[in-house]
């Protein structure tokens, strides 16, 4: 039902997403020009910063991997009809679990850290699912609340207090947990860049999620629950159980995203760790149309945008410009009806009456 509400009226979700992204780029192009700077040079820097050589490509890959995973987290929750706003909190617990387990001197510490992160994220994701099926608490509200519980507990207490590295004390810049063991670092793949094993891992996970959602019985049942819980229940699908499973996977994906940041680049849980990747995951999943493949494409695009935006400073433009482009794209994707007149015109006058008729709410697979 949720999928129908979010995505349905767009008969061409792919083209709506592309049009939204292009329109967002156009708006930002005009915005740069209006502020008296050179938009062409700005976009040139954006592309160079994202794709120009091994260094920038590595940065793009690092950011894309995290965005793909948080995007998948939101997309998986979509399939059972839940809106997971809580990827940020799940990511934080996952990152903390990776930082704690990554310090242990055990064989296979890298794998253990990733699994611990998945488990921590899954538990934090399971909580709103249980509240939903047992107590009827709306998941949008509970996940927002849980985000802030996680942010304050981890950043304001655990990392600053019990888990802080001794002597990290007053200075925030060196604060955080003790560094993880080198054996727990994600291996770097390309000399001259920070590209690590996180990107191929994220792609492999995305492929597995695609297989699970579209090629297995469990995935079918999840989608059935998302299309209509009552109908699925009447068909004998244990709907409450399926909702909990999907939310646990959703949380696990966000948790692994947090682990990639800790094991790949930070190498400890830093004192200041406001990533926003969890919130960006919502944008990635929406622009990606809620499918695994779309999420990968949108994740790479927004990852490149984030990486390239750091170069925008050469033109005196703050990197937060990437967030602006992303926000506008989501605004436009959010309202597919904005583009309906455009599609109607493109299809020609013979089709126009059909397009202006009240749309039939369709449920997409």
């Amino acid at each position, binding site marked *: 039902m949720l999928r129908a509400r979010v995505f349905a009226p767009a008969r061409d979700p792919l083209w709506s997403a592309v049009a939204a992204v292009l329109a967002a780029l156009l708006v930002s192009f005009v915005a740069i020009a209006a502020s008296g700077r050179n938009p062409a040079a700005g976009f040139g820097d954006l592309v160079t910063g994202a794709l120009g050589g091994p260094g920038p490509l590595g940065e793009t890959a690092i950011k894309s991997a995290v965005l793909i995973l948080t995007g998948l987290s939101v997309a998986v929750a979509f399939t059972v009809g839940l809106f997971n*706003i809580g990827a940020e909190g799940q990511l934080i617990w996952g990152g903390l679990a990776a930082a704690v387990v990554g310090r242990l001197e055990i064989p296979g510490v890298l794998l253990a850290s990733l699994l611990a992160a998945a488990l921590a994220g899954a538990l934090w994701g399971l909580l709103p699912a249980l509240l939903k099926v047992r107590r009827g608490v709306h998941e*949008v509200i*509970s996940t927002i609340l849980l985000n802030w519980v996680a942010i304050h507990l981890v950043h304001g207490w655990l990392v600053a*207090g019990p888990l802080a590295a001794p002597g990290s004390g007053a200075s925030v810049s060196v604060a955080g947990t003790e560094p993880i063991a080198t054996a727990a670092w994600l291996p770097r793949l390309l000399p001259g860049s920070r590209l690590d094993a996180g990107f191929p891992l994220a792609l492999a996970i995305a492929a597995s999620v695609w297989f699970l959602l579209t090629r297995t019985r469990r995935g079918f049942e999840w989608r059935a629950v998302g299309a209509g819980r009552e109908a699925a229940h009447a068909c004998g699908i244990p709907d409450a159980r399926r909702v909990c499973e999907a939310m646990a996977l959703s949380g696990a994906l966000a948790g692994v995203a947090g682990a990639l940041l800790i094991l790949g680049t930070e190498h400890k849980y830093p004192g200041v760790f406001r990533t926003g990747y969890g919130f960006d995951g919502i944008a990635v999943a929406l622009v990606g149309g809620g499918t695994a493949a779309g999420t990968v494409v949108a994740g790479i695009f927004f990852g490149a945008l984030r990486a390239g935006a750091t170069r925008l400073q050469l033109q005196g433009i703050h990197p937060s410009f990437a*967030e602006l482009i992303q*926000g506008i794209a989501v*605004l436009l994707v*959010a309202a597919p*009806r904005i583009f309906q007149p455009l599609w109607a015109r493109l299809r020609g006058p013979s089709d126009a009456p059909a397009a202006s008729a009240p749309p039939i709410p369709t449920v997409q697979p």
Partner: protein
Amino acid sequence: MNAILDFAPPLVLAALGGVLSERAGVVNIGLEGMMRFGAFAAVAGAIFSGSPWVGLLCGALAGAAAAAVHALLSLRFRADQVVSGVALNLVALGLVTYLLQSVFGSAGVSPPSPSLPRDGFGHNALAYAALVVPVVFHLWLTRTAAGLRVRAVGEHPRAAATLGVRVLSLRAFCVLGSGVLAGLGGAALSVGILGQFDSRMPAGQGFMALAAMVFGRWTPLGAAGAAFFFAAADALQRQLSFSLHAADLRLDGVFLALPYALTLLVLALGIGRTRAPAADGVPYDPEGR
């Protein structure tokens, strides 16, 4: 006590904004973004005009402008209201930082702005507004015909429409009003408390306002009461870390997490009748059945 009255206005006003929008049936996750626009516009307006009052006006207008986008998307284009609100927050994050740097040349903080005058007790006008507005709002919502219409539109828009209420216009009005309140809440943060704009504003206050709204069961007095309670918890936390050297214990985070955890607990235990308006978040199609 004084600290509570100082820190409560942003939360109280934004929480009331949430109540207004959601009682009319429009979910407003965008409170955080509206507060951010309001906080920035208030400082910009106050600096360029030299008057904090003009700043407040600018804050309210900026909040309303952001709300207009939410109303347009979710009412006219029937976008999902949660998505629309999330998108608004993302835009606010990027756009305000961009404007901050373009206008004041720094992406961190703005120059100090003129701040609101304080009375003999050290409070500014917004502190009193935080006390008065909830009562007025409560009376309006429960004792007037207009308030009844708002509640009807939030519970059963189809029934309200058959009685001649223009559902979409009324919802749009309430969303805009919600933006005004959230924008003022943001202004209370910047022009009212800090006297400048900080690029991290409102630092989750919009989401805490959302929690206060839920905690207060979607009623004006309840939401305002919850907002005061949360502000008190915040003030207590500051006091403790000041006097007890609780900073050594580093328990700030536990105190800060408390309002959210308590709200969750109230929801989970179903204490009282904690229920959102029946048509909250359901798009209304005038031609539908």
